[in-house]
């Protein structure tokens, strides 16, 4: 009889425990959702670049989803040099007509500082931890694990729309040139 009673209490204890755990999980889920980015933040727009606005060898910093985006129109001389020295870097460039662009999120892939463009050495230096990127923003000195990420883009005539995924971007993703951001 005593055992029987204990069994009944155990059962009630488990029911209470299970019920409490369920409520706890529900509360945790609500808390997690409260910390999620708001829909208005998620829907934050697209940035359209007009290629005629950019001069060769001049770095322009645009803004996309609150992040800086480097836009650098490469000169024919740079392209020739790359063809000879680093042909694999050419895959990182975005071609619109006969203009070649380096477009990437200007946040170091190490911990997110903004690397500075150094025109005299034709590279990017991140002052936080000393990472260096070449002219196409491919990494050349650690700690960054990879080159600067290329944002999703779609080429539309003489315009580039950041935030939309065009076939050229999908190909870059498939080839492992960049990571999704």
């Amino acid at each position, binding site marked *: 009889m005593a055992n029987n009673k204990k069994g009944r209490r155990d059962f009630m204890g488990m029911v209470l425990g299970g019920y409490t755990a369920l409520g706890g999980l529900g509360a945790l889920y609500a808390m*997690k959702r409260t*910390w*999620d*980015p*708001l829909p208005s*933040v998620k829907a*934050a727009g697209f940035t359209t670049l007009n290629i005629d606005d950019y001069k060769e060898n001049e770095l322009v*910093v645009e*803004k996309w*989803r*609150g*992040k*800086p985006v480097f836009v650098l129109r490469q000169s024919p001389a740079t392209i020739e040099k790359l063809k000879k020295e680093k042909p694999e870097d050419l895959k990182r460039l975005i071609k619109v007509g006969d203009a070649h662009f380096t477009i990437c999120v200007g*946040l170091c*892939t*190490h*911990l*997110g*500082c*903004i*690397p*500075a463009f150094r025109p005299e050495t034709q590279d990017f230096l991140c*002052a*936080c*931890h*000393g990472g260096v990127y070449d002219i196409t923003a491919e990494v050349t000195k*650690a*700690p*960054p*694990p990879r080159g600067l990420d290329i944002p999703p883009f779609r080429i539309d005539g003489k315009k580039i729309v950041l935030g939309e995924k065009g076939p050229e971007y999908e190909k870059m993703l498939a080839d492992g040139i960049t*990571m999704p*951001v």
Partner: protein
Amino acid sequence: MAHFDENARPFSHQWLNERLAIDTLKRVLSTEYWIPKNINFLWAMGMVLAATFGLLLVSGIFLLMYYQPNTELAFDSVNYTIMTEVGYGWLWRHIHGVGASVVFLVIYIHMFTGIYYGSYKRGRELIWLSGMLLFVTFSAEAFSGYMLPWGQMSYWAGMVITNLFSGGSLHADALVEWIRGDYVPGQAFLNRFFMLHVLLLPLVIIGLIVLHFGTLRIPHVNNQEGEELDFEKEAALYKEGKIRESKVIPFNPVFLSKDVFVLGIYFIFFFYLVFYHFEFAMDPVNFDPADPLKTPPHIYPEWYFLWSYEILRPFPTDPGLVAFGIAQVIFFLLPFLDKSPNVAPAHKRGLFKYWFWALLIDMIVLTFMGKLPPEGIWSVIGLIAAIFFFVLWIALPIITKKEKKL
């Protein structure tokens, strides 16, 4: 059944005693809480920390009355409203800024005192662990508070530290965005760190302080020789009036009067900093408003995080993150990595003496290297110091196992 005297006057001693056992509480927590005599001023650091936390709390309450947790208004609410308009607003800000920095200096002194005298060993492990929890929570409190003025260093420190949670090659970008509530630090980020700084973390800290005191009550504080005292015997001597022969004194009022003396000296130093040298706690870069499109040329944390930052910096991303993660928790393991049975000061413990000073010097070197730009010789020294830090922790169980029993 408790006995309540119907003739006891409300709020009289007897009336309170019947309801709250105030005599017992006073005895257990103060007049018969025995402290060894054989200690020095370093044993006052706990009370110094409690007092500094009190100063941070009071100054924080006054800052809270004018601070605006809004990305558009935060910077001006601190640098214009509080600093120039609010009567004595500058005083609260300088106490808060200096206090946040000095509290870490005292925490480090408190920790290294404990390491030197073996105050984390047998019977006192929970004191060490609860203290480490306090250190971690204070670190989170300091970081979240640093976000609030929304200057350049606030913004970029927020960017870099939240990016640590992407876990390097794991690319947990969704987790980072979840923590921020945005792709980059913004309004949602500022608001939630404001909440953490003024409510959740202080509640946790207060709870942990109570736990820390609780873990101390039964093992009692250590002493300069690590001597295991028979507290009952020594207390009996003291109560018999043999104050000179007894090796202990009561916490209140005898030990507390010494604590208050040390506090007096400390406050002279503290308020000297508040009034004449507050600028060491105010990074000039943070007097520029946050600009998401411009990283300051050189980012570094406040001095008290530099040693662990320097452990992150010289390695490639993934090993760097692993090293950083280990450095954050390795001190928790101290009571279990020290295999020696001796509870004694470091100078009596053979190799451990050199281990102690090597660790202290290595952490000071790491601190200096963390502040210097990561270039040339500084990178090399930083890398060596970071590797040496791990060598020391790997060596600890080995050298302490070999230690002779005293």
